[in-house]
């Protein structure tokens, strides 16, 4: 029983990171129709910004949020406005745009990664912050993971409130459900697309910051997280924001269960789950 | 002789019946019109017959053989072919290649390249597109693109041809030409079912008309019977 609870707790702790990781991607795909293969690179940049601020300037990693998020927001906004907007104007059909935008994201992936390697090298890095455990009865919690869970739930919640309570948030949701109709309401669609891509990048920044607190980081870590994000997003339904929140936690628990049995199989189990899901219900568990 | 027999055909989309319990038969050599307001389920019916969709209930018999549930390419090779509402051609390919594909793959038996080329040439000439033979199909005007689609369907040497809104978006002269074309196809011995909104065309060339509304067959008869039918006028004019 105890071990089961331990597994569950571990899963929840991991799930928070996954949820944040996936939410950004989901937003970018759901509204802007860009399957951003470079998502993991933005996560990596977020992680390294936090790492550098902490180790070089002694800034608390939690403040990394205030830096990594906004920086990536601006980068994302510019990338959408300069690159994807141009691509969209040049592409005849939405289906063609989905294909070519994914390939363009590949290009961006290489650019971002090589700049990162240029600046930060290829070594595995890390720092320790709040790396100790507390016990609640017999159940062990590592403090930094607990902090991560709290922060990720908080971010999810804030973002959820943003989407459901604010004028811009509602416009984003409307644009994802029916862009033309949203335009008729007076929503400037191009601005929304850029905003969504920027928010997606910002989420990646947050995820990177959280990841850097508990996992080793390296400049080529991006693809791994992109794939996890894709898995979660498909799990929750491509483009559904609440879906990817729930999907993140589900995958977290799933991964904890598998790694309790055999840690070596975790990644393989992810992919298997993902492929089966794609075949059985491509619109995701919570998809329409 | 009956060429097509549809019985209790039903299709649900998420609980909503797009087509429900439709029965009808088509006699060899006739032109059957299929009309009804937007969203009445006409195209869904075509999709069910041509194999794009699998019905939830009911069956389709073609020349006495059950074809519902078969793949579209199999149905096509049996001699039942359809065109699409939004003209679906291969835009980058030449007119000839478009039609040739129909001849190569649509015939009931394997056919040699040379023979297929002859069939394609004949079909292109039949619809009057010989002058555009080598042009990319996508560069043609809408009316000619629709002719390419018809020629491609004819090249599969069908016995039954289903035309989905062939005349939508054409001007009156073009509609006249299209009507002529449909009659000439019938004269080749090919049975035709056509969905059409251009009433002038339907009333003039169809021997029999079926009216669909909300997925159900609500009327069937000659053009005269349909145009004076109370139910039909109600649906179209809202009286």
């Amino acid at each position, binding site marked *: 029983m105890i071990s089961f609870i331990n597994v569950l707790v571990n899963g929840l702790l991991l799930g928070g990171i996954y949820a944040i990781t996936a939410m950004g991607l989901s937003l970018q795909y759901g509204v802007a129709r860009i399957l951003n293969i470079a998502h993991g690179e933005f996560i990596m940049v977020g992680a390294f910004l936090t790492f550098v601020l902490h180790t070089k300037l002694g800034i608390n990693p939690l403040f990394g949020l205030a830096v990594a998020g906004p920086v990536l927001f601006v980068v994302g906004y510019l990338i959408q406005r300069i690159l994807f907007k141009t691509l969209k104007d040049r592409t005849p059909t939405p289906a063609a745009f989905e294909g070519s935008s994914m390939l363009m994201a590949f290009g961006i992936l290489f*650019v971002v990664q090589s700049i990162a390697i240029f600046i930060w090298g290829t070594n595995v890095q890390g720092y320790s912050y709040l790396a100790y455990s507390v016990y609640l009865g017999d159940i062990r919690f590592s403090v930094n993971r607990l902090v991560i869970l709290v922060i990720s739930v908080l971010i999810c919640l804030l973002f959820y409130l943003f989407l459901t309570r604010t004028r811009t948030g509602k416009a984003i949701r409307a644009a994802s459900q029916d862009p033309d109709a949203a335009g008729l309401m007076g929503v400037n669609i191009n601005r929304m697309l850029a905003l969504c891509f920027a928010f997606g990048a910002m989420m990646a920044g947050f995820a990177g910051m959280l990841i850097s607190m508990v996992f080793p980081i390296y400049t080529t870590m991006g693809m791994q997280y992109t794939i996890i994000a894709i898995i979660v997003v498909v799990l929750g339904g491509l483009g559904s924001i609440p879906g990817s929140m729930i999907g993140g936690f589900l995958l977290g628990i799933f991964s904890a269960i598998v790694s309790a049995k055999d840690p070596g199989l975790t990644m393989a189990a992810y992919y298997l789950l993902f492929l089966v899901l*794609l075949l059985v219900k491509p619109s995701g568990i919570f998809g329409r | 002789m009956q060429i097509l027999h549809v019985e209790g055909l039903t299709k649900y989309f998420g609980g909503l019946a797009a087509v429900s319990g439709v029965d009808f038969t088509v006699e060899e050599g006739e032109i059957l019109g299929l009309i009804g307001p937007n969203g009445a389920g006409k195209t869904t019916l075509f999709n069910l017959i041509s194999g794009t969709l699998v019905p939830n209930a009911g069956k389709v018999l073609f020349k006495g053989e059950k074809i519902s549930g078969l793949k579209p390419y199999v149905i096509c*090779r049996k001699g039942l072919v359809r065109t699409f509402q939004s003209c679906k051609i291969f835009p980058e390919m030449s007119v000839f290649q478009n039609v040739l594909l129909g001849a190569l793959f649509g015939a009931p038996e394997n056919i040699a390249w040379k023979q297929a080329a002859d069939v394609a040439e004949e079909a292109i000439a039949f619809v009057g597109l010989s002058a555009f033979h080598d042009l990319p199909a996508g560069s043609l005007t809408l009316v000619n*693109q629709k002719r390419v689609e018809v020629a491609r369907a004819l090249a599969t040497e069908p016995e039954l041809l289903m035309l989905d809104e062939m005349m939508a978006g054409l001007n009156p002269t073009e509609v006249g030409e299209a009507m002529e074309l449909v009659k000439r196809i019938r004269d080749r011995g090919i049975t035709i079912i056509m969905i059409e909104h251009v009433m002038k065309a339907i009333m003039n060339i169809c021997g029999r008309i079926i009216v669909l509304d909300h997925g159900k067959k609500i009327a069937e008869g000659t053009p005269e019977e349909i145009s004076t039918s109370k139910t039909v006028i109600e649906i179209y004019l809202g009286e």
Partner: protein
Amino acid sequence: MKQSKRIAKYILPVVIVLLVALMAVVPFFTDPYKVVFLRTILMFVILTLSWSLFSGTTGYTSLATAAFYGAGLYTTAYLGEKLPLPLMVVCGGITAFALALLMGAITLRLKGIYFAIFTLSSVELIKQVLHWYEINIVGVRGHYVTRVNDVTVYYVLLVITVLLVLTIYLIKRSRYGLALNSIGSCEEAAAHIGINVVGLKILAYAISSFFIGMAGAIMATGMLYIDSYVAFDLNYSFFPTLMAIFGGLGNILGPLVGAAVFTYLREILITKYSYHYMLIFGTVMVLTILYLPSGLIGLAQNIWKKLTTPAPTKGLKTEGGKHADTSC
């Protein structure tokens, strides 16, 4: 105009034959390093051409090239010692062929972006499962491979390339080539004029993978050690895709030129500016997709057209331009 076309028809085969002949004698005149370099180019040419045989024509972006390549590598790792070289290469191809049949059969329902991410993840799944299998069941990670000399590898690759080009040429000329193009153009219409789209797609996928697997099988002999992370490296999925687009899809020449030029640049960049090469690579990629959607060959064709045709004649409007209502 017609005449120049006819001449062009003869020029291409002659150029190809000359090129192959030249490539066949190159190892006698150059230093070993150049042979290794040419070998890499040939490998990418095979991967890129195979990729575009399926994805370029049908429009389904497959990101499983690495899986088929890796399947070839692993076949050699397991069977290399037991089989004569030609048989080993064919076995690599057959393994990849079977894998592609399987993958094709289970991805029937997936379209567009779903197909791409499915194939991408398949590579990772195979990688992870193999990794786990080696560590937990076999107990040894990876394999050592008997090396074959570079010149032999080079010749085998050259033969595979020639066979591949020939295969593509024959397919393109046959009814099935036309049918594959029609699937890329409008799958629904293709299905309704009697084309067995599903069967054709799977077969084309398997045939293209056969060549990728053969390339993998022979390339394995150039490596000392293979494990699942080396073999199923996602870059083998990405590079061919990018190279094909860079060169231009739609005919044999585009992917061929794309792969050759790109690999050449890559080798130069790696040796001279090893840190910047990915940056340049990525930038070129983004610019290609933005400004050269039809690739290098498309660019060359446009320039050629501008040079050969005088001023564009007016009055073609009635049969020119695209129509928005055609959905495919």
